[in-house]
C-alpha cells in the first residue's frame, strides 16, 4: 500500500442552523453572538422541564421539503456547499463523494416504525427504508448526483468531525477529488427527553466553562464543507476558503457516558491532528472548543487545554459556539468547522457570549467575549461525545498553493 500525500482544501460551505440559515447569516450571528435559543413547546420533555432549545424555524427548510426535517435541512446545506464550491449537480468532475455524520438520521421514520409496531400495525415500507441512518446519505447522493465514495458515520457528538477527517483521508489517498463532509441532527422528543432525563439540559442559558457550572442547550443543524484535493480546486479555478491541514482522533476507553476527567483523550486527538498537519501546539492561533457547558465535559476539556497550551505566555483566543447554536449533536463539529473557516478567511475571532473572564480554562487560554479582528493562521476545532470518543481538526488560513 502506498500513500501519495495530497493537500486538502475547503472550497465550499453550507449551513442551516438556529443561529442562521446560510453561511452569511451564520457569519453575522456568530460575530454578534446572537443566540438561536428559543422556546420549543413542540418537543416532548418531562412535565416540569423547560422546553428551551436552539431549534431551526420551519421557514428555512423550504416548502417542497421531504417529510423528514433532517433530510430537508441536510439537502439545503449540501446544496449551498456545492454551489459555493462551484460543483454542479450530477457533474462527472470533480469526482465528489459524501461523508455524513449523524446520530439520529431520519428520526421521523424510525419513530413511525416504532409507533406502528407498538400499535400492532405493519410499518410502512417507506418508513422502514428511511429508518436506517444511511437512508439520509442515499437521499443526498441521489439528489446531488454524487458518484464518489459515500461514508456514513455515527460517533455521537464527534460524528461530523469524524466525517470531515474521513473526507481528508479519502482526498489524500486519491480515491476521490472532493467530498461533501459534515453532519445533520434534528431535535425530537426522543433526544430531548433523553438528555432531559439525564439531567443535562439547561433551563435558561448555556455558559461554557463557567466557574459555577452550567448545563447544555440542545440545538439542531445541518452543516457541510466541501473538502477537495488542492490540485483539483486549482484545476477548476475554485475559490479556496481554507486548508484542511490535519485530523486526529482518540477514545478515552473510560466510561460510556462520562468523559475521562484528565482530558487525555482530547489531548491525544489534538496532538495527533497537529502531527498530521506537521505542526506543534505553539503553531495554534485559535481554538474552537466543544464547550457544551456541562460540568464534567467542560472540566475535562479545560484540563486538556492546560496540558496542550498551559505553557503559552500569552492568552490563546478560544471560543465555544454552544450558547449561540446550541449543541447540535452529530452536526456540531461541522458547525464549528465552518465558524473556524470564517474566522481564518475573515481574520476575525468569534466570541462566546456570556463567556466568563474567570472561566475554568487555564490563564493561557482566553475565552473571547466579543468578536475582534485577529490575523489568525491556524485554528483547531475539538469534539467529544458519548462513548468517550474525541476528534480534532486543524485548519489553516489559505495563503496560496502549498
Amino acid at each position, binding site marked *: *500500500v502506498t500513500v501519495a500525500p495530497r493537500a486538502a482544501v475547503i472550497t465550499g460551505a453550507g449551513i442551516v442552523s438556529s443561529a442562521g440559515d446560510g453561511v452569511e447569516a451564520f457569519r453575522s450571528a456568530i460575530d454578534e453572538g446572537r443566540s438561536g435559543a428559543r422556546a420549543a413547546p413542540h418537543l416532548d420533555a418531562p412535565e416540569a422541564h423547560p422546553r428551551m432549545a436552539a431549534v431551526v424555524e420551519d421557514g428555512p427548510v423550504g416548502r417542497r421539503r421531504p417529510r423528514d426535517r433532517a433530510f430537508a435541512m441536510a439537502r439545503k446545506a449540501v446544496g449551498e456547499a456545492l454551489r459555493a464550491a462551484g460543483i454542479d449537480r450530477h457533474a462527472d468532475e470533480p469526482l465528489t463523494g459524501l461523508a455524513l455524520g449523524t446520530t439520529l438520521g431520519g428520526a421521523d421514520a424510525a419513530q413511525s416504525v416504532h409507533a406502528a409496531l407498538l400499535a400492532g400495525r405493519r410499518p410502512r415500507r417507506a418508513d*422502514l427504508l428511511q429508518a436506517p441512518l*444511511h437512508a439520509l446519505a442515499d437521499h443526498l447522493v441521489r439528489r446531488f448526483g454524487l458518484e464518489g465514495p459515500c461514508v456514513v458515520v455515527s460517533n455521537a457528538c464527534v460524528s461530523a468531525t469524524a466525517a470531515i477527517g474521513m473526507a481528508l483521508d479519502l482526498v489524500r489517498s486519491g480515491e476521490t477529488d472532493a467530498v461533501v463532509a459534515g453532519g445533520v441532527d434534528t431535535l425530537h422528543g426522543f433526544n430531548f427527553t433523553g438528555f432531559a432525563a439525564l439531567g443535562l439540559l439547561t433551563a435558561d442559558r448555556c455558559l461554557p466553562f463557567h466557574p459555577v457550572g452550567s448545563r447544555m442547550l440542545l440545538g439542531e443543524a445541518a452543516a457541510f464543507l466541501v473538502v477537495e484535493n488542492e490540485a483539483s480546486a486549482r484545476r477548476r479555478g475554485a475559490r479556496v476558503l481554507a486548508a484542511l491541514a490535519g485530523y486526529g482522533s*482518540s477514545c478515552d476507553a473510560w466510561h460510556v457516558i462520562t468523559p475521562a476527567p484528565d482530558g487525555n483523550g482530547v489531548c491525544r486527538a489534538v496532538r495527533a491532528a497537529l502531527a498530521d498537519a506537521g505542526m506543534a501546539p505553539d503553531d495554534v492561533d485559535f481554538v474552537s472548543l466543544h464547550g457544551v457547558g456541562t460540568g464534567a465535559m467542560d472540566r475535562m476539556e479545560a484540563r486538556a487545554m492546560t496540558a496542550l497550551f498551559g505553557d503559552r505566555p500569552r492568552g490563546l483566543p478560544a471560543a465555544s459556539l454552544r450558547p449561540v447554536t446550541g449543541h447540535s449533536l452529530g452536526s456540531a463539529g461541522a458547525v464549528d468547522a465552518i465558524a473556524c473557516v470564517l474566522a481564518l478567511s475573515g481574520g476575525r475571532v468569534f466570541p462566546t457570549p456570556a463567556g466568563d473572564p474567570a472561566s475554568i480554562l487555564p490563564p493561557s487560554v482566553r475565552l473571547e467575549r466579543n468578536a475582534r479582528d485577529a490575523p489568525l493562521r491556524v485554528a483547531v476545532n475539538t469534539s467529544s461525545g458519548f*462513548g468517550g470518543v474525541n476528534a480534532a481538526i486543524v485548519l489553516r488560513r489559505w495563503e496560496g498553493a502549498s
Partner: protein
Amino acid sequence: VSALVVTGLGFVHPYGHRLEDLALALSREGRSPSQVPAASLRATPGRARLRVDGVGQLVGQAVTLALENAALLPLADPDATALVGGTQWGGLEACARFHEELLTRGPDHVTPSVFPQTAHNVALAAAAIEHQVRGPVFTLVSGVTAGLEALGWACRLLAAGRCAAVVAGGFDRWFPALGLALEAAGMVGCAEGACFFVVETEDGARARGVSPLARLHAHAIASCRRPGRGPADALARAIGRALAGHAPPVGLCSGRGGPAARDARFESAYRSVLGDTWPSLPTFAPKRSLGETFGASGPFAVAAALSRWGGGLTGPVLVDALSWGGAGAAALLVEPLGPLTRAAAVSSSMTA
C-alpha cells in the same frame, strides 16, 4: 507502508463462534436461525460492569475473540490500536425500548440509563473500554456495506499512519420487533451476528511473530446517483476500483443471496467488470447459509472466503456488498494465506 494482513478473526453467529461451526454452517443452505443462543452470550465480568445490552454483547464477544486470535491481548500499545465497526441497525433495540417508554408512559417515566444505549457507537465504545482500545474508534452506519467498509477503513487508517493495528468488522442485532418489521418489508432470512478481524502491517505481524491469515490487497466504495441501473453501476465501479492494478480474482465471495431482483444487480455488475465468463469463477454466496446479517455480512463473507478457500485457491478473492437501499457498494480483494485451521479462533473463555 508494508502489505496489510489479517492476523485475527473472531465471530459470533447463531450457528456458533468456532471455526468448525462456520465451516459446518457454510456447508448448509436454507434459513439460518435468527438469534445467537443466550448461552453463547454470557456476559463476562467486564461486560457486566459496562451494562451492555444485546448488541454490545455481540460486539464484545467477537472483538475479544479476534484480539485473542491475533495474540494481541493485553494490548501492548492501546493508543496505537483502533476499533472500527459497521452496522445497519446499531443501537436500534435500545431505541425501540426508549421509544416504547416515551410513547406509552410519557416523557416523565422513561428510564434515563436506556438513552445512552441508543447511541449507535456505544456497543463499540464498550468493547474499547473492555480492552482499553484508545486509538481511533468509530462506527460506520452505511448498512449492509458497513462491515466491509470498516475493513477498508482499517486499511486507510494503517496506510495513513493513524495506528499500528485495527480491529475491524461488522455487527447487527436481531430482536423480535425488528424481525417483524423486516419481514413486513419482505426481508426474510435475517440473522444477527458480529464478525471482526485484526488488521495490521505485515512487518508489524512479523515483528510480533504472528502468522497472517490473509493479505488485504485493495478495497473500494462507490455510491449510486440514480435509481434503476444505478446500484449495479455503483457495484461495478466499486469492484472496478478494487481490481484496478491487481491480478484478476481467482474466486468470488458474493453479497448475493437475497431476492432475485437484487441478485440481478450483482450479476449485471459482474458481467460489466469481469466479462461474460464470470460464471466460470469459483463463486460462493455465504448469505444463503448464514442469512442476512446486515452490517456483519461483509466480514462474514470474508471469513467464509478464508474458511472455504484458504489453502485451496492461490490468489486474491473478490468480496462485495451492496446496501439494501442500493445507494452504497463496497468491494474488497483478499488473499487467503493458508487453511483457516488455527484453533486460536476459539476463545478459552467461550469453550466451556
